[in-house]
């Protein structure tokens, strides 16, 4: 009797061990998009073999005309603008380079650990506009919200996969410190008081991202050798992807183009 149950207990413990180890394997295979901030054990990237991905994002076709924002309702902001403030849905540079695109790498980075930056990423409210209009940070990395306007704003991110919050920030108030726990591209941010104010915050599980500037270029450094997908996201034109393979210490260029007349969803 006793023997039988001992055998059974032994078997089930063995089974449990097998299951647990299987479970571990599974969780490491979970796509990063669904995983919470991955600070779990992993090795740092070896800089001696790491490569670089660079490139330029362009817009094919004429950029839509941006609209003038009517800020008459908020005189304190209105008078900050000598020229009328414009919407920022599509901002291009010379030669159709596209600004405000979040470019990031997708792939299996599960064996590495990426501590989020200690220095906060800042978003400022000035002249009733967000500066910058698009930004990106790592999961768990600090975000600092400041208000340089003489009026009260409220910062209201409307995430799909993160916790939602909505804080007011009167003029001269101390900065609001927040962070996002889960990967999401991109969290829209709005101010309910000044509904023309819009920003997007990309939250990524790895440090392999950059937001393009006026020249549409990006540089993603310290990439371990491997095959990845370069993904570019624009608020109006959606996402576009291209594969890339980085050999040891290799530098690759990936250029992408969004079509102006065919906005993605």
């Amino acid at each position, binding site marked *: *009797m*006793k023997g039988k*149950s*001992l055998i*059974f*207990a032994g078997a*089930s*413990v063995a*089974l*449990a061990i097998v*299951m647990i180890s299987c479970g571990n394997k599974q969780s490491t295979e979970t796509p990063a998009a669904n995983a919470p901030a991955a600070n779990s054990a992993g090795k740092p990237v070896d800089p001696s073999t790491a490569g670089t991905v660079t490139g330029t994002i362009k817009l094919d076709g004429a950029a839509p005309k941006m609209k003038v*924002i*009517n800020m*008459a*309702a*908020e*005189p*304190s902001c209105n008078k900050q603008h000598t020229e009328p403030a414009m919407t920022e849905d599509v901002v291009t540079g010379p030669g159709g380079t596209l600004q405000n695109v979040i470019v990031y790498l997708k792939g299996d980075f599960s064996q590495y650990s990426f501590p989020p930056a200690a220095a906060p990423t800042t978003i400022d409210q000035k002249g009733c506009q967000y500066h910058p209009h698009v930004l990106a940070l790592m999961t768990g990395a600090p975000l600092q919200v400041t208000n340089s306007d*003489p*009026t*009260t704003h*409220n*910062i*209201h991110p*409307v995430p*799909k996969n993160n916790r*939602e*919050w*909505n*804080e*007011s*920030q*009167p*003029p*001269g*108030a101390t900065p*609001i410190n927040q962070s996002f726990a889960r990967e999401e591209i991109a969290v*829209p941010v*709005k101010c*309910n*008081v*000044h*509904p*023309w104010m819009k920003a997007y915050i990309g939250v990524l599980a790895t440090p392999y991202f950059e937001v393009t500037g006026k020249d549409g270029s990006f540089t993603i450094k310290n990439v371990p050798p491997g095959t990845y997908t370069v993904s570019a996201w624009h608020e109006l034109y959606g996402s576009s992807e291209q594969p890339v393979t980085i050999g040891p210490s290799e530098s690759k260029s990936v250029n992408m183009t969004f079509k102006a007349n065919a906005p993605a969803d």
Partner: protein
Amino acid sequence: MPEIPPQDDPVVSRPMSVLILVSVFLLLLTVAWSLYGEFFGLRPWRDYQAHFRDLYSSYLRKQISQRRTQEQAFYASADYKKLKAAVDAAGAAALPEDRKIQAQIDVLDRQRAAMTGTFQIARGQVGALTYQLEQIPESDKSGRASKLKELNEAKAVTYTVDWPNSDGSVAPRTFNYDLLNSTFTSLMAQKAALVAQRGVVDKPAKDAQAAVDTYVKENLPGLGSADLAGLQNSVQSMDPKLRQINVNPPGTQINYVGGVGLVDRCQSCHVATDPLVVPVVMTLTKADLGVPKSHDAPFTSHPDQDMLKFHPIEKFGCSPCHGGNGRALDTVEKAHGRYEHWLWPLYYPENADAGCQQCHASDIITEHAPALNDAKQAYREKGCIGCHKFQGFDNQDELLVGARQQILQLESDRKADQLDIPRLNKQGDTAPNNETANAFYQQANNLTVTVSSMDAQVEQLDQRTHSLLQETKKVGPDLKEVRMKIHKEWIPYWLQHTHEFRPTTKMPQFRLQPDEVQAIAAFIWQSGLPGPPLEKQPAGDAAHGKALLESRGCLGCHSVGEGPNMMGGNFSANLSRVGEKDNYDYLVRWVHNPRERTRPYSPFEKRDLGPEDYAKHNVPFVFDLDHSRSPDDGHELIVQQPTVMPNLRLSIQDARDVASYLITLKHSDAQYAPADFMDDPKLVAQGKKLVQFYGCAGCHEIATLEDEGRIGTELTNEGSKPIERLDFALYTEDAKRGVLPDGKKSPRGSWYDLKGFFENKLANPAVYDNGKYKPDPLDRLRMPKPNINSKELDGLVTMLLGSTDPSLPPDYMYKPSDQRASVQKGWWIVTKYNCMGCHQIDVGQSSVLMGLPMYQGQEKQNLPPRLTQEGARVDPDWLKRFLANPALSATDTNRDGVRSYLEVRMPTFYFSDDELRSLVLFFEAMSHQAEPFIPQKLEPLTTAETVMARNLFTSTAAPCLKCHATGEAAHDKNAIAPNFLLAKERLRPAWTERWITNPQLIDPGTAMPSGLFRREDDHWVFSGPLPVSFQGYMGDHANLLVRYMLQMTPEEQRNLLSHAPPATAAAQK
């Protein structure tokens, strides 16, 4: 003397050895058998328990070591050490002072002990003498004087006490009585003062200890390693034993077994459900124990510990909720009652909620029983209710009859009483003396008062009748207006292809022969009202109609699109093929006001009244909720369509636009065969007979059949039906052998039980006719095929299985008399009108609109309000007014009274007075508000406070007016929040203060930002820069603003606006 023949020695001549040997063997065999049975055969629970013990104690060992590591880390943490050091430091700091005080207290205690004996003797003597003195009468002056003298002498007696001094020495000290008394009192007072002083001295140490305790509790929740070790110890030494729950409330019978009460031995195998084995703070799953899910070991703790809090096992046992034979232990099959001699088998997992139904049959919503709740909803929505009565759950018709009978009874009593009054008065007039006369007059007076209170009662019952008539709705549309509404050719097609035409329809599919279809269609068509012809409507703007349909809230109940493109709720019809069947003019009328009726129906005369009936009495042909009495006899009429669809208060032009859009929704190739037979009067009689046979009037209003009863079996106690009364017909043997009607093997073996019968009946209501020769359609089973999915089928089976004769005493039945009753009553109404299509009412429940693509992300702000705290938010009188007329205006109705800025709109439901009352009480109950409501008094604002609040409202720091509407068209164009003027009558101050200080707590994701105020000491302070007028103000800023808002006048608002910048919100979308 005859010689006695020698007798055989019985022992020698009849040897018993064989018999004895056989008996010995038999005995040995039975002993072996019983031993085998004891250890191997009949006690499966022994194995289970032993197995469980091993697994559980190894699990506990693992937990203990984990916990120890955790605790060590915790106790080594800097935070804990810091707190602990603070305790030690505070203790050390207090110690000298504490000791000093203790020494003083010790001296006082010694002194008191030294004097106590003496003091008691002295006090006894003085007390006795005082008593004796009081007993001597006032007149006996000399006696009193001598006793007084005696008393004074006693008080003057001196006593010597060995008095311990504070330095430790003892010296004799003399006392008289008064000194003893005062010294004693003083000692006590000194000690009390010292104890208090020590409390002050020790407070820092105690506070520090409390901080440590709280910190430990918050950071190391659950059982500690010592607790776990104790548990593990007791588990390891646990001998397999029978675990038994006895429930036997005195004087009652519990469960089916009669007077002996309930004996459940389930825990003998399901060990982990015993809280002594697995404490309620723990949960145990098979995964915890490393047992695969498929393993039959019953080792998990009860999955819903929360529910056990109000259904304690020691009161409810197991089998009353789960079924099964709680006494049986021999085999799993017997314990679970799954054998032919046990009438209450264990419910299968998919029917687990059935156990709730026994006591919760009259609930509309039962917490922790989602499947049952869904089933009850389906039972109403899918129209089961149209044919099958279910008591305690749906009783509007009974209430109506009851109210009518009560009125009749009261009227007859009243008449009798009224006859008595003159008789009594007359007796008074002729009484022999005034006393008797007055007694008669008094009796007469009492009767007049009684009669008048009966009048009040009758009046209330009349109103109740009015409400009940207004509340009575039908599942399907009114067929009296079929000629005005429907294309004639479509009807016969629909009758035959119900689920094909509209896959989500509630209407079940009848099995009709072609001639039956023709007769039914002809009867329905010819019984419809012939006229008057509808007003001709010009065409509208279909694109605008589509926008309205998608934004006004229609999709909370209706869906559009087919297949994967379907979008919206399934409470009401899918509208994707309306254009194939409906007349445009009728649709316009319907969309404009779905409750509009062509003719009122008189339940008393049992016919529809027309203009000609009104003309006879020279009254205009006007009937609505305010003109609901018959001109013929004054009885209440049915003046509205019996639909739950509310009036969206669209303008007639908007209604035309919506109808124009709807009429475009059709398949381009739709064609229906001509149906001239529908005008054939010869078919009417046969059609009517069939309509009655199939019970169409259960769900539809049909001329001449308004009073048809329900044609189906009452299902109130269906779960108690003996299996012999369920006709499995030709499947009886198959069912016992476990062969399903489709020839496949039943996964659970025999299905010759209630569950099997119900499941197969619901899946195919004609199944038990299979193989029978029934040439006459009227002999066949008539129940149509309900349009339900497998989840709904399981739910309905669960509901039926649970609907048994109660086996528990009446006080186990859930019949709340407190606010929970209001919740049940209200839930009936909110589900009846599908309030959850648009609103979140219960925490955690989602509305249909919340899931629609147009309300995602930033568009969430366009959703209707969350009502989870509605009762705490609004004044119930206001709520009643709003529910009755959500436009909050008699004339300006094409809007929402509160949130005019939203596209989606609260429609008018024409709730009856009873429904209004119940709904208000429901919201109050959901938010635990005391009833009746007494408004909170608001401190009036001082002039200075008014100025301050106004300054703050108009400062750039406070953005209130940028979002909130003010009633000025230019400003409100951009508003996204209600007008402050509404606040006064609408909002409760306490809620408003909670709202403005942290709205995200009440409505996560709301556009209203948090952090407008910060807590300073014990009050709220506005976070932004303050106007100068606030200098020196010590009051609570949130409270000031609440008082200002809730006392806002139109004049003050104009005042505000002249100072404030215009609204900005929603300037761009």
